[in-house]
């Protein structure tokens, strides 16, 4: 019983984005009888539209509207997000790791670091842990609650064996939001290996086939795909009144709203806030202190490939079956603050070839190596990067997208801490493969960022951030941010679980505010 709401119905909460943040928030509100209109820029795919073909699905999912990068980012494709119902949860690899307690107190733990705008999170670890447990249960995270761990595939067994040769302890497969058994009406994982291409088994949690249809079944939710929000309007009292979006027919329409929650992934969220210039907020909503778009983080990233002496067949099974957390702790003796994960990450022949080109050149040296594809292993390193004021999303001064809005310019530079961590992590990963007699290891550059964070940071006080600890934008009482934009620091873990946990927490808060008629 899908519901449809009138454009003039000002009693609805408008949620912008249908991914980890927006999809979760929508369902949590709808389950509590709150009417929600969810505006998603991308189309609604059916699971039957998925194919076991990375290149094909990349074109189907990816947000390909232009952005511009600078600093250490790709100029043309600085970040990789999805424009589709379900957002990046269609494409994500399902690693569902909690933030560590010390990471939540980043400023207290790491101390003062020059150039880094470190801060502690403005909420307590115990409170967040409560929502982590709820999020893990919702998503069916293997290794938590009643969900058994998934079995290790060749690729992770290899990495773990290499690490053990170096003296690291045995590591289990990762906490993954992938069914190891039938659960929540979804099948168990059959180890297809196409997690990034939309899970055909629906074993991997994605809001596309969990939160969204569940919200629809409440009768309190309407999803509008292919609806690109271009502006949020503010009334004289400071409250937002409506959103303007281009609908699937290409018409600009206005949806009135009781409250608005933005969950467009950190770059698009910041862009929308900056593009929404109002009488009260001439520099963009919530941007009275010039903080919207600042402190953009994307994790310390790097990729390694290793040519092993025996067959690995890294493409078989879950793409990121395991994550080594042996170096995730904070130990300043290593020469940097915070830590990192080493995560298995299978690559296709095409990705491998593109990256090997820089090492082997064209011709038979390259093809001799690629013909040994079955003997390759791949890993990524993912570590905490530090928030810096100069790493930021701004509006491009000349270029506009097809909706007539200035495109996002994303500037990001690595810092000393990140560079030292990167080197340590790459070296450790090489050692792991060399401990198993790798014939050769290759360092590849970081790919375009999928972990986009920090552009509307939470803080206790307005002077220090864009949002309060519930994601409410300072100075705009009924505007919320509901994605990774609110992270004041990046933590080491992949961000989705934390985004879901915060969205669940925000839903409780919104419900209280509404029943107390504050909203």
């Amino acid at each position, binding site marked *: 019983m899908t519901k449809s709401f009138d454009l003039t119905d000002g009693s609805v909460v408008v949620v912008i984005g249908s991914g980890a943040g927006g999809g979760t928030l929508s369902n949590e509100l709808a389950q509590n009888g709150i009417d929600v209109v969810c505006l998603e820029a991308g189309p609604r795919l059916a699971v039957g539209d998925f*194919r*076991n*073909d990375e*290149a094909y699905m990349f074109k189907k999912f990816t947000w390909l509207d232009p952005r511009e990068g600078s600093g250490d980012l790709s100029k043309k494709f600085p970040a990789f997000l999805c424009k589709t119902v379900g957002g990046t949860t269609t494409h994500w690899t399902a690693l569902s790791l909690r933030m560590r307690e010390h990471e939540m107190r980043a400023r207290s733990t790491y101390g003062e670091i020059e150039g880094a705008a470190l801060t502690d999170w403005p909420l307590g670890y115990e409170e967040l842990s409560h929502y982590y447990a709820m999020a893990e249960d919702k998503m069916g995270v293997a290794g938590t609650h009643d969900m058994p761990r998934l*079995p*290790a*595939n*060749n690729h992770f*067994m*290899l990495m773990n*064996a290499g690490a*053990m*040769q170096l*003296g690291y302890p*045995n590591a289990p497969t990762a906490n993954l939001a992938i069914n190891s058994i039938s659960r929540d009406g979804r099948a168990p*994982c*059959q*180890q*297809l*290996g*196409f997690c990034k291409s939309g899970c*055909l*088994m629906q074993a991997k949690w994605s809001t596309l086939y969990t939160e969204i249809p569940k919200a629809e079944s409440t009768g309190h939710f309407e999803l509008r795909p292919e609806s690109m929000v271009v502006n949020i309007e503010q009334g004289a009292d400071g409250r937002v009144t409506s959103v303007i979006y281009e609908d699937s027919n290409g018409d600009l329409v206005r949806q009135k709203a009781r409250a608005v929650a933005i969950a467009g992934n950190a770059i698009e969220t910041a862009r929308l806030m900056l593009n929404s210039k109002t009488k009260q907020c001439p520099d963009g909503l919530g941007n009275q202190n010039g903080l919207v778009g600042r402190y953009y983080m994307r994790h310390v990233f790097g990729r390694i490939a290793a040519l092993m*002496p*025996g*067959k*690995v*067949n890294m*493409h*078989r*099974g879950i793409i990121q079956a395991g994550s080594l957390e042996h170096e995730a702790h904070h130990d300043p003796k290593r020469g940097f603050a915070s830590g990192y994960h080493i995560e298995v990450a299978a690559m*296709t*022949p*095409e990705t491998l*070839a*593109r990256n090997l*080109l820089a090492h082997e050149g*064209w*011709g*038979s040296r*390259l*093809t001799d190596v*690629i*013909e*040994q*594809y*079955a003997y390759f292993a791949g890993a990524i390193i993912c570590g905490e990067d530090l928030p810096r004021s100069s790493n930021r999303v701004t509006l491009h001064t000349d270029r506009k997208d097809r909706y007539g809005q200035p495109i996002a310019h994303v500037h990001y530079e690595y810092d000393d801490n990140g560079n030292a961590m990167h080197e340590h992590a790459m070296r450790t990963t090489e050692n792991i493969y060399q401990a*198993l007699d790798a014939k050769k290891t290759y360092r590849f550059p970081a790919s375009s960022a999928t972990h986009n964070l920090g552009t509307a940071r939470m803080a206790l006080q307005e002077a220090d951030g864009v949002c309060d600890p519930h994601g409410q934008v300072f100075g705009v009482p009924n505007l919320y941010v509901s994605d990774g934009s609110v992270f004041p620091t990046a933590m080491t873990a992949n961000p989705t679980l934390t985004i879901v946990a915060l969205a669940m927490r925000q839903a409780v808060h919104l419900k209280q505010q509404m029943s107390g008629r504050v909203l």
Partner: protein
Amino acid sequence: MTSRREVLRGAGGMITLVLANTACTFDKAESEEINAAAFSDHQLLTLTQILQHILPHAALDSAVYADAVAAIARQSINSGNKHKLLVEGVAALDASTIWLDAGASAQVAALKAAEKTPFFLSLQQVAIEQVYRDDRTWQLVGYEGEAIKFGGYLNRGFNDIDWLPSAPGQSESVE
């Protein structure tokens, strides 16, 4: 290798690229666009040969390279820049003598000299895209492609690795 591939122009502006194992036929509207983008047989054969030097898989059916060039040519239809880059790149290789007529080592040497040109760099990227998205190449290198057709690797070798050492300290206990 290239002799296995011919470009036939039929009546009514239809173009059929006849390859070793495949034939792609374009409809009238498309063929008019291709005519506008006009690649000569010589240009197409040269591009095919260049791809074979960039990504020389000896055991790979040469139709893979010809198909890749057909796709690259089609992609350039709506981009004057791409088309110009390809046509001018081939012309530059042919500047003193016809590159295609040279021996293999002379061909490679000429490509080596051109490897920093926008033409070569661009062709290299699209060559990788085409050749390594082709399931004939996947088969050669050991990538098994679509997994749903056999139900995934759960009972099909996802954990069949048999050459890893046992964990340090465990092997001693056997003796």
